[in-house]
């Protein structure tokens, strides 16, 4: 077995207890609902028979361990149950929603990287200059804007004032084409990207400044190697990306969380919007599915982050 495969296997093994702990905790939360889950779902004035029927249908009348065991058995078959009212398989709904959220988060990450890394490079090479100082101030300001403010700002500028993009809604690529899809995805992605751009910029710039002080960079410059064509991308940027790689993993998690606000505001049918809807109607199957998916995504992301370290910096080996 290669070292990489072994490393992946170990990390997956670490992820399994995390999965159990988080999903079991989620299952236990149901026990804290007033009355019973059926009562909470149908309301205080619901008939007792209807409440009992709903509890039985979804297994809320079972002891928590037994209910959790049944759910795990379903997970093994990729059956996460059905949604509360539409009776669709949770797996199907999650799949649809996840694609939307991943697209928005991916676009946001892409925007952030495209803007932050080049700017960080320029600012690091011209440390202390006017551009560095301006970007320092701008990035501080952007870091101060939480996502629930950035959505309003972005909407105010691009929708209300410029009328350049639609205020709400989503057009899938399959039905509207890529251009129309991107027209609806741009503003949500931009709202998410603002914070990430500033965050990445600050971290990458800091790492770049430290790397620029290394002897091998001094040697490369003394040898007359082209600064922007060779030194910057190969000698300076690459070893400075380890922090960024870690942050990318964290950023994905943050984007998934921030996407809740963005999806709510822009009425996007992603995981975040589904989470809000599921909480509102107390769709426990859907919430359990979203939590489980979140755990799996996080574990996979950090495995990829560790693997990426080794690829970026040969000095690091995966164990």
């Amino acid at each position, binding site marked *: 077995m290669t070292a990489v495969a072994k490393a992946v296997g170990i990390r997956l093994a670490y992820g399994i207890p995390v999965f159990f702990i988080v999903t079991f905790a989620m299952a236990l939360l149901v026990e804290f609902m007033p009355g019973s889950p059926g009562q909470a779902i*149908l309301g*205080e004035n*619901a*008939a007792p*028979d*209807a409440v009992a*029927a709903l509890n039985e*249908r979804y297994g809320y009348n079972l002891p928590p361990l037994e209910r959790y065991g049944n759910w795990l058995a379903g997970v093994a078959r990729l059956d996460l149950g059905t949604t509360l*009212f*539409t*009776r669709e398989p949770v797996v199907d709904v999650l799949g649809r*929603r996840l694609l939307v959220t991943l697209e928005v988060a991916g676009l946001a990450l892409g925007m952030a990287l495209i803007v932050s890394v080049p700017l960080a490079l320029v600012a690091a090479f011209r440390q202390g200059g006017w551009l560095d100082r301006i970007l320092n101030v701008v990035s501080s300001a952007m870091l101060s804007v939480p996502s629930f403010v950035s959505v309003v700002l972005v*909407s105010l500028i691009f*929708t*209300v004032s410029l*009328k350049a993009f*639609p*205020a*709400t*809604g*989503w057009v899938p690529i399959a039905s509207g084409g890529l251009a129309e899809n991107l027209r609806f995805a741009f503003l949500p992605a931009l709202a998410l990207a603002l914070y990430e751009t500033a965050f990445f910029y600050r971290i990458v710039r800091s790492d770049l400044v430290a790397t620029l002080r290394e002897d091998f960079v001094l040697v490369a410059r003394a040898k007359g190697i082209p600064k922007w064509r060779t030194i910057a991308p190969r000698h300076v940027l690459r070893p400075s990306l380890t922090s960024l790689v870690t942050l990318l993993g964290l950023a994905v998690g943050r984007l998934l969380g921030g996407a809740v606000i963005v999806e*709510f*505001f*822009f*009425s996007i*049918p992603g995981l975040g*919007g*589904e989470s*809000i*809807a599921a909480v509102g*109607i107390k769709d426990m199957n859907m919430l359990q599915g979203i939590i489980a998916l979140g755990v799996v995504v996080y574990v996979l992301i950090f495995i990829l982050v560790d693997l990426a370290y080794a690829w970026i910096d040969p000095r690091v080996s995966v164990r």
Partner: protein
Amino acid sequence: MASTKKSRRMRSILAGAAAIATAAALAACAPEGGSGGSGSGEAVQGGSVTIVSAGPVASWDPTAALQQTIPGLATDRFLAVYGALLYVDTQSAVVPHMAESLETEDFQDWTLTLNPGITFSDGTPYDAEAVKYNWDRATGEGSAQKGLASTITSEVVDELTLEISLTAPNPVFDRDVAEQLQFIASPAALEEQGEDYTSPVGAGPFLLQSWDPAVGETMTRNPDYFREGRPYLDELKFTVIADPAQRVTTVAQGGADIMNNYRFALLEVLEQPGLELFGVASGGLRMAVLNNATAPFNDVRAREAVALAINPDEMTQTLTQDPDDAGWSGLFPESSNLYDAQYDIESNDPDAAKALVEELAGEGIDTTISIVAAAVPELVRAGELLQIQLSAVGFDVQLEQVPLGDWSARVRVQKDFDITLYPGIFDLNNAPVSMNNLFVGTENIAQYQSDEMLEAVTVAREATSADELAKAFGTVAKIYQRDLPFIVFGLDERVYLHGDAVAGFESIGRGMLLTENLYRTDITEE
């Protein structure tokens, strides 16, 4: 400009609320209304319209939720898919729709006659058997209409006729049907799908094509709809947008065609080109509800002190943020023939209010009170002003905000409040039913108890002419003026904000749209 705005606002309210003035015969079979409403030009077949909604449809089962005719709820979509047996129009008249008539001689035995030739979208007949099936099913456990449905015994006479016998005479049974039992689903579909009733089958103007609770619904024209030539639209969409500001922006931008809200919430976009407003005629009351069951408001002097402390103009202007808005102190709008100015409540007299509070305090009555306001911006503003106004006359006032979703549990169920601001407006549509609910029924949040008022609203429910109704509600207003279980401080109306390319607006009930009459003015018939 200010006076023009104010007079325009009042004209709009009064013109719209002229509905109440007619108060047609309660059990009459008025001819079905035509497609009135705003819009111009000939109605053209075709096109698509998108209506913005705040929330999704949770279930298509007609028994799943109480059928309120307030726009923006699931019943908007129910009306599109199922049509309605009867509805109450904005003049408070009961209008047969899928039914031809619902008649009675004694208010206990009724005869429902259906229009011929109506079929559900699965081909099964929309007949007396189908109505009976649905109404019998509504008596089941978990049905939101169980209370009304349980009073009904029905017998199929022939394909189009259902004989109904009630457990007791109910003068407003037709109104109750129009608001609670109006949606009839295909019995075959209900039986076939059982608990998984997610593909509704109705006989309404539209057929449900897709349903995603996070996104909305898409419907297409029902080619077999019983009204020839209707609906005009080929496609009707409901899209869910949770954020209120984004709903307005989406319509203003053209991303959707129609949304509904209160007029004051749309002030900023009213002047934008390409947008129009359609007012829902019935209108409603803005009021502060007092807990009549506990001290100090179990004493009418304390209630009177609140009425005198309140400045209705200031309260309304603070709530709506419209400096030209005017308050109101009557139980009905001025244009209504149910309105009598002599029964307006006295208000805005802080000195008199102070004297009453001092009198109460002198007798050892605790004048410490709490205002419970749902945590929505307009109600919080109004609550803060109310706190100031009541403090100024001697009450010791605490203001407590509760999440909107918790307001009902706190106020209606726990009854844990001294004063609360009624969230939204209390609809004046269907006055014999709504006023009965307000004073003695499900909307009697104030826990007001009065045999005299009970008798007065009962007489109003049994009135069979406009004059009788006016006289009966005169008595209601007189008792209200004396007892002051709640304090009316304003009038408001729901409106539809829509693009100017959509016409054919006609609202029913408390504001639902008859979507079968909508059409686009920006397409031409081929």
